């Protein structure tokens, strides 16, 4: 395996570069995945049948918490990648750890939000609006959940093997995933919640 030392570790081998480009292309596909979910949501947002509407169930508090927590976690993982490029393994693991904790905080808030909806009669099966809402939020939340496991596995590997082209590549790709989830949240925050509460 030929290592190019003029590049950051995560780009330093041919396979590493393939992995990063491949993941960006995957993110292109994910943009279409979420675009389809958003299309369904926008089409069905006002079709609440006899169930609760968006104006009736959306609350600003959990949304604010989720947004600032996720946004901060995007910042901390950016700091983590920067630390990694400086070769600061412990700082990197600390920032990644904080990121995952913030992600967990996001998830807990979202689960509580869903439980509230259920108590208000807005369930997965209630109406087209609720099905679309929960599928969109749930897909994003499912991605975050997967991310918590994936991120933990990477921290464990960095702990055990140190910063190598392999571990740096994985950590960088994970950071792309995590940033992307924040980008999706920006659209959820703006066009599902805020628009629904205008």
């Amino acid at each position, binding site marked *: 395996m030929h290592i190019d030392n003029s590049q950051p570790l995560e780009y330093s081998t041919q396979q590493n570069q393939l992995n990063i480009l491949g993941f960006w292309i995957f993110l292109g*596909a994910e943009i279409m995945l979420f675009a389809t979910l958003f299309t369904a949501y926008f089409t069905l947002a006002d*079709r609440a049948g006899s169930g609760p509407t968006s104006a009736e169930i959306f609350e600003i508090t959990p949304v604010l918490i989720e947004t600032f927590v996720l946004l901060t976690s995007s910042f901390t993982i950016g700091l983590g990648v920067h630390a990694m490029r400086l070769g600061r393994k412990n700082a990197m693991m600390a920032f990644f750890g904080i990121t995952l904790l913030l992600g967990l905080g996001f998830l807990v808030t979202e689960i509580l939000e869903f439980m509230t909806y259920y108590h208000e009669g807005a369930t997965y099966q209630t109406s087209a609006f609720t099905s679309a809402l929960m599928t969109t939020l749930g897909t994003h939340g499912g991605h975050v959940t997967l991310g918590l*496991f994936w991120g933990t596995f990477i921290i464990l590997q960095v702990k055990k093997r140190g910063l190598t082209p392999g571990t740096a590549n994985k950590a960088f790709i994970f950071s792309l995933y995590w940033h992307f989830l924040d980008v999706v949240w920006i659209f959820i925050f703006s066009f599902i919640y805020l628009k629904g509460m205008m």
Partner: protein
Amino acid sequence: MEFFERFAIPNPSPAIYASMVAIALVSIGIVVGLTYFKKWGYLWREWLTTVDHKKIGIMYLVSALLMLFRGGADAIMMRAQLAVPDNKLFDAQHYNEIFTTHGVVMIIFMAMPFIFAFMNLVVPLQIGARDVAFPRLNAISFWLFFAGAMLFNISFVIGGSPDAGWTSYFPLAGNDFSESVGTNYYMLAIQISGIGSLMTGINMCTTILKMRAPGMTLMKMPMFTWSAFIANVIIVFAFPVLTVALIMGTTDRLFGTQFFTTDNGGMDMLWANFFWVWGHPEVYILILPAFGIYSEIIATFSRRNLYGYTSMVASMVLISLLSFLVWTHHFFTMGQGALTNSIFSITTMAIAVPTGVKIFNWLFTMWKGKIRFTVPMLYSVAFIPLFTIGGVTGVMLAMSAADYQYHNTMFLVAHFHNTIIPGVVFAMLAGLTYYWPKFFGFMLNEKLGKVTFWLLTVGFVLAFFPMYITGLDGQARRMYTYSESTGFGPLNMLSFVGAALMAIGFVVIVYNVYYSFKNSSRDIGSDPWDARSLEWATHTPVPEYNFARTPQISSSESFWDAKKNGHVLFKGELEEIHMPNNSGVPFILGIIFFVAGFSFIFGLWVPAIIALIGVFICLGLRSFELDHGHHISVKEIKETEEKLGGAK
């Protein structure tokens, strides 16, 4: 015992019972045969765990050919039923099951694997690479396709076949009107296969962007590779839409969501909308690699380079973009307003333009060329007029106001078969004949190939052109019968004769393979067609590592330049070659997804969840895995090259 009732066929027939017996016997036969000939180890080592793009390509090819016969059997059954008025060969229920499986099998389980076969076999060789960017992901793509195909194919003997058409519109496809598990099979089998397709999209795009041999800029790539690249770009952006639509269809049926229901706010048209947002790009995914194969073949057998390289590339890029802008033309008649229909009419007519550019470029390539009418060239030459006719009927359909007359009549059926058969199927058969010697070491018999060609061409025209007329006369699509007084009888009988000719043509292909295997010379060299592009610069059979040395590229036809103009393709010292290791995980994942799919279809929640956990365990293990592949030593390369006929 009650538990097993769910697997019973809701609408059995003698043919279905016979099929159950046949499937059981064949499965047992395969297991017994493998055991008796002690081939389990060979199967596992050489095929089930391979990550080699060439072997994966062959597995896709074999699967596609098997599925061609499954879909073809459906076709001949439909044509037989419609050959005479008031026919009682199949009742409405069985006819619905047949046309549904015909559509799904032919598009998802025959055409897609066929193009993936050629992409896998040819693209890495055409760009001078040793494999694709992600070999293990490539294997996973194949086994997910295989799992989806197996799942779909057992539907008609376990639980019941889907019967709502290959488009599976709601509310017909919902629980109220499709009570059997058939539509669950549809949703889950296509989903699993689709995930594999998306992975191939990412894999091929990365491979083509980053793994080309030195000197091969994008504008020096062979045309098939360009077509594969554009098709994979479309795959990356189209398949996620299908993924979401299928999830929503699945949750509506299994978990009571309200996406496509008729009350509680549901909108059935949303399914049709999403299906076609994917569905239209899908047909371009199929046709572009076919165009790529024609480009290779026409250039080779006109003994000329392809005319208009730049406009060929530009037209495909334009087609890929426009393919996402036309989808509503599949449902012009379903309730949206005139503004919408007008916009999509215009975009639909626009997409004919770049395709027209390509037709002219092929014609100009042949003009003043030294043409050899080999079997692949015959298919290519027939394609041009036949596909053009299909294309112009497409422009007729594109006019939304006129489409109210044509929609869902046999005119539409004639149009899409007129583009798909001369377009995709002929290209696949031409490609099969063209690339056969490279991957199997002998040529298919030319005479038998020509017999097949004429049977298929004449058969195709006889089968489908009458449908244009009966469609304009008012014969609807997806109707299991018609009365004598309609007058549709004679032309439908003609269609049946045409279909029978095509069936004979396909049987001749099988015989050709057998005959050629027994009789064809194995001494054909590595470039039997005197071809132009890099995949022919390899030995036959192609060694595991493809090229002993990475080729040096100077033009878009460096192999031809090396043969005719003294360009040096391979120079420098031999170096150790790094190759990926085999892995059993893709095959195991295929099994896990099959189990998950089957469990969801029948509402067996415990095995479904266990299987899904299995998927995540595989992902987790992969994360921690440290597999760096293996190295092929210079000594071994030298020995292999000597054996295959001298180092290149």
